[in-house]
């Protein structure tokens, strides 16, 4: 089984410029563990201090938000395209922020 992972340009400074690659990960936690090995700097960037995926990163499976598919429990299917976007969702902002 193989899935395709597509990253935004903002992440590519941690991946030697690679935006796309294939993976055999079975689910999202496994994919993140794979990043720990292959792109440790990326892992640091996208995980928070507790090791969880940062709140403002959205993960899509093909065209669907992974949260609609069961989140971490979703089992990747052969040929799935996994994309990550840092902008869709925002954390709590500062008191005086717009």
């Amino acid at each position: 089984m193989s899935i395709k992972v597509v990253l935004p340009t903002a992440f590519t400074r941690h991946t030697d410029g690679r935006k796309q690659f294939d993976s055999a990960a079975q689910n999202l936690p496994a994919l993140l563990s794979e990043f720990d090995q292959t792109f440790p700097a990326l892992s640091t960037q996208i995980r928070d201090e507790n090791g969880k995926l940062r709140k403002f990163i959205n993960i899509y499976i093909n065209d669907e938000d992974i949260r609609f598919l069961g989140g971490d429990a979703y089992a990747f299917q052969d040929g799935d395209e996994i994309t990550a976007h840092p902008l869709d969702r925002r954390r709590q902002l500062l008191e005086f922020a717009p």
Partner: protein
Amino acid sequence: MDYSSTNYELACNECGKRFGNRPLSACPDCLAPLEIVYDLLSAKGVFTRDSIARGPASIWRYARLLPVPEGFQPDLPVGFTPLIHASRLGARIGASSLYVKNDAVCFPTLSFKDRVVAVALANAQKFGFDTVGCSSTGNLANAVAAQSARLGLKACILVPADLEPAKILNTLVYGARLIRIDGNYDHVNRLCIQIADEYNWGFVNVNLRPYYAEGSKTVGYEIAEQLGWRLPDNVVVPMAGGSLIRKIRKAFQELIFLGLVKKPVRPVRFFGAQASGCSPISTAVKDGAEDIIPQRPNTIARSLAIGNPADGPAAAKMILQDGGWAEDVSDVEIVSGIQELAETEGIFTETAGGVTTAVTARLFADGRIAPGETTVICITGNGLKTTDALAGSYNHIDARAIRPRLADFDAYLRSLDGAPEPELIAAGER
């Protein structure tokens, strides 16, 4: 692509890092959203009631607190829409000091999106973009198409395929390239993020978003000024992405800081309005939740149909911390809300305004807002764009044509009013 300003610049919400001014909406280090921060101290004594009064009757009277580049020459008289005392609507819903901020007549495209686009495009030009774009549920598409035409910029606009025909026509007429996407707004938005990543285009709500969002503050400045430089007790605001409600609050805070309005004893309370068919933010408010659970939108209020709102978590938190609330209403109530506002105040709003009006009525009915409190409801779009929402609402109206004769007119009126009429009596109908 960069420029510098002594008055404002981009800053990261998380790590505080500053970035000058450039087309960027997330911190490259911690990925958090960027916001515009101002040198508010230097605006003291400069941004005054008098200086504002001398400005044009448009959002540009507040330019000192907007991220517009030095030397920018305002072109279009955007904004400064009427704030009207809504006594008849108030009487119907039990509110004695109710006001409507009427952006259904915002120039040039009849929605509050004209404000944000004006500020975004001022920056798009400064950054040197020759093509601008947006993901849109309609109003934004209209505003980007019209204003980019006026400025001679190319526009590429992406919308959900099921958008109201009027909003599609109102985009195409300006010569914009419009691309319909087989998906909902959240799909469209995601695609735009990818496009902005690959193409050197200025997407007003993606890479220009920090600038764009600041334009919403002008709603707050105008409310305060039009109330005679005082703040209302409550504001009711429709929520799609969750940005407008927060920017109005930011505007009020800036005015307090600069001494243009008195700090109220009790903070202004904000009330968010959503459609039940797409209510991720109001659900979070009601549950007291820290986070937003995304929804798949299913409502006639398409301009509010954002299932995964960018500013949702922050909006929900802000509403609760100031003692406000959020409500959502059904599609049937939305249509009633449109009719109620039109019948009482002569304002024809789109479905989003129906949401806001119906939610306001419920807030008063539920006692969440007291009758005498000064309350402003924000009407953000025009009903001419969503007439299909009212299709079928007037089928019961007698549409017979009558002959151009006074006797026919008299008889017709009598029949409508249910008065006895010789022919009908003779026919045994009454």
